[in-house]
């Protein structure tokens, strides 16, 4: 299913890619290379926080057909720095400002060309984001949609927790007592004559106790289904699912660094400078952000995904190079209000994926130097090159 996602996204991406390409040709805007769209899509992530394309009004107005409504020059300057324009007393700007209950749009550090690209993207946006257009009715009646997802999510997490915190201590004690009793009876008091009963009881209890001990021992130092309370009640569902904010908008170092990065408060402020009230928690939680921001003391989030220190994990390697979907490790975050640790983060879990998942062997030029493997691949001796094939299950790949 994850694979499908990737494919779908790619196909969408490519579609939009072509369309915008044609458009740009059609519009004979010379300085638009094909590569622009990709960048624009990235830039648009910021806008997504408050705007949709034909998805109806969020914080800011729906951008569908904005290009027709306003002339380019105005748009450019407005997008680059709206507040400045308002202060300057531009009538349209002020009007827009008032329309959207006086929430200013934060200034964006974009060049004119970038803005043009962005506009182009918006213009073609309806078609590119076809997937999302069809999804747009959902966003219109968010509420009941919400309820549905809410139910299943709560169910999901509930059961996760159930088998997460398998509390076997009672079973353990009971069995231990049973064992002792039967032993006692067998050797000394001999109430039960049929000896096989003793044996069966003892055997089974030994087996089960052994299992418990083993599982608990391996679980030692792991924290699967760990869901701590965070200092701020931050809902990934609201942000990632309803507002459709891309993961990498907040966790923006995920494709550059080993750390995905907890977003600095400043990032929150990009939107929450304006958005002062949340659907579920009202002002209460968002106020915390503002507080943290004013007294500039960073918020102490509780880390959920903790790897032991002797493991070196690099997000860039997986997200950027390996093109691994966030959900593959972190689960369907957009369904969770508060984050819960889905995998057990055991070495076996890593290895498993490294054995099965194939690397970007043909697309990434880095792998060209693996000539032998390429031959094999060509000859069809192997269907695909997994991480293991290039030594992905070796110690020094993660432990150093």
């Amino acid at each position, binding site marked *: 299913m994850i694979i499908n996602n990737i494919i779908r996204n790619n196909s969408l991406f490519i579609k939009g890619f072509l369309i915008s390409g044609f458009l740009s040709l059609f519009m004979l805007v010379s300085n638009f290379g094909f590569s622009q769209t990709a960048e624009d899509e990235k830039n648009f992530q910021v806008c997504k926080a408050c705007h949709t394309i034909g998805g109806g009004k969020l914080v800011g107005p729906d951008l569908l057909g904005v290009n027709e409504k306003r002339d380019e020059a105005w748009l450019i300057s407005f997008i680059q720095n709206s507040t400045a324009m308002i202060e300057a007393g531009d009538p349209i700007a002020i009007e827009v400002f008032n329309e959207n209950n006086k929430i200013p749009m934060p200034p964006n550090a974009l060049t004119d060309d970038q803005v043009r690209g962005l506009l182009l993207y918006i213009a073609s946006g309806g078609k590119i984001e076809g997937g999302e257009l069809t999804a747009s009715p959902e966003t219109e009646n968010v509420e009941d949609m919400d309820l549905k997802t809410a139910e299943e999510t709560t169910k999901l997490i509930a059961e996760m927790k159930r088998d997460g915190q398998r509390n076997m201590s009672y079973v353990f004690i009971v069995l231990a007592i049973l064992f002792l009793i039967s032993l006692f009876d067998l050797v000394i008091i001999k109430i039960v004559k049929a000896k096989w009963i003793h044996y069966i009881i003892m055997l089974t209890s030994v087996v089960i106790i052994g299992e418990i001990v083993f599982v608990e021992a*391996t679980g030692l130092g792991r924290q699967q289904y760990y869901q701590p309370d965070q200092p701020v009640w931050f809902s990934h569902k609201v942000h990632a699912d309803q507002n459709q904010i891309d993961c990498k908008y907040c966790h923006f170092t995920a494709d550059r660094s080993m750390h995905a990065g907890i977003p600095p408060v400043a990032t929150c402020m990009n939107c929450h400078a304006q958005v002062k009230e949340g659907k579920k928690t009202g002002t209460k939680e968002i106020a915390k952000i503002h507080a943290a921001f004013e007294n500039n003391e960073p918020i102490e989030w509780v880390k959920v995904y903790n790897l032991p220190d002797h493991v070196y994990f690099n997000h860039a390697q997986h997200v950027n190079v390996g093109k691994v979907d966030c959900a593959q490790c972190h689960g369907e975050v957009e369904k969770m209000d508060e984050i819960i640790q889905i995998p*057990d983060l055991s*070495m*076996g*879990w890593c*290895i498993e994926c490294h054995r099965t998942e194939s690397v970007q062997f043909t697309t990434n030029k880095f792998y060209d130097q693996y000539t032998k493997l390429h031959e094999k691949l060509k000859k069809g001796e192997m269907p695909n090159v997994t991480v293991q094939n290039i030594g992905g*299950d070796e110690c020094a790949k993660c432990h150093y």
Partner: protein
Amino acid sequence: MYNTRVRGVLIKGDKSYSQVSRDVLRPMDAPMPKWWYVTAFIAISAMIWGVWGFYNTITTGIGTWGLNNNVAWGWAIINFVWWIGIGHAGTAFSIFLLILRQKWRTSINRAAEAMTIFAVMAAGLFPLIHMGRIWDGFFIFPYWNTRGPLWDNFNSPLFWDVVAISTYFTASFVFWYIGMIPDFATIRETTVSKVKKKIYGAMSFGWLGNARSWLRFETAALLLGGLAAPLVVSVHSIVSMDFAVSVIPGWHTTIFPPYFVIGAIFSGFGMVLTLMIVLRKLYKFNDYVTDGHLDAIARILTFISLIMGSAYLIELFTAWYSGNEYELFTFMKNRVTGEYTFAYWSMLICNAIIPQFFWFKKIRKNITLVFIISIFINIGMWFERYVIVVTSLSRDFIPATWATYSPTWTELAVFSGTIGLFVMGVIAFFRWIPTIAISEVKSVLKETTTLKSFTDED
């Protein structure tokens, strides 16, 4: 049957069957002798010191030992190999002499096997304690895990060790215990004390002693013996591979397996000799462990010591013949002459020269001398391991890294602790377990032999 040759008896003072039982069981019913308390006290205090050594090592680190970047193995391994060697006596007796149809073994093998058990216990402690991270020691077992699962390196002699030693211990223990069952039954039926009846009754597993049980007993004993027989060879061969498999000059030697096995049996017999002399002195078992027995062991030792001697010579020869400068250095410049002369020569003298005195009947018959020589053998075998482990490591390939090694108090403590454990085990055995296999002795009670050791005496 007619035979011109003089026939000696294995058990002297023509005992009756019940006399045998009584003689063997007497010390168990007799009040605790004084020497027992004294020895126990010494042994236990040694063990306590050993516990301190363990504690010190585990809490502070291997750094409390005298090891360094070049000599990463020291006393721990020396003593380990030494104990394992001693631990070979039991099986050697029970199996080899069984196969060689040496009936006279019957009055010794019980004690010998007991010795094996405790020696192997003592040995087993060293691999544990010498681990840097003992709390992760379970990594060494190839169990199913959530690391991939990640298994062990089956090329490693250390892994072979783990397997071999645990097997050896299990096998010897089972063999030993099964052998004791009929005797426990004897105690069960003959003792007067209620408690003993209960305990030994439980330990005798409800032994009857009718024809079929004897049949199965004999077969089982034979099978277990047969299974354990290759162990006598394999265990110490594998231990020797710890060294033989490596690249270090003086370790990387093909002669090691046979040489170690012989050495093991040598030290084992040496220790048996020591123990039996003590035992028969304390328990007046002269009729069971006769001078003939000691004489026989002495003769065997003489023979083995010859083998040892030749092994040492062959080592030197190979070193010279190989023309490998590193080998040459280790043997000629480092052992025969050079820094470790003392260790080397005391090894050579104790193992190859001194036992040769057994050629003289006078010495063989003089129990005190025999005792002393047996002690020398034990010491000599310890030095052999010292020579192998330390001399090779401390001056190996790259002169820049050469370093010397000397043990610390902690290592000493650990060693003495294991000795304490061994002694304690042995005297506990003396005290609570029939030290001589009653039923087996009975079966050979009327046997005679033409063995020189037993006939030569007047």
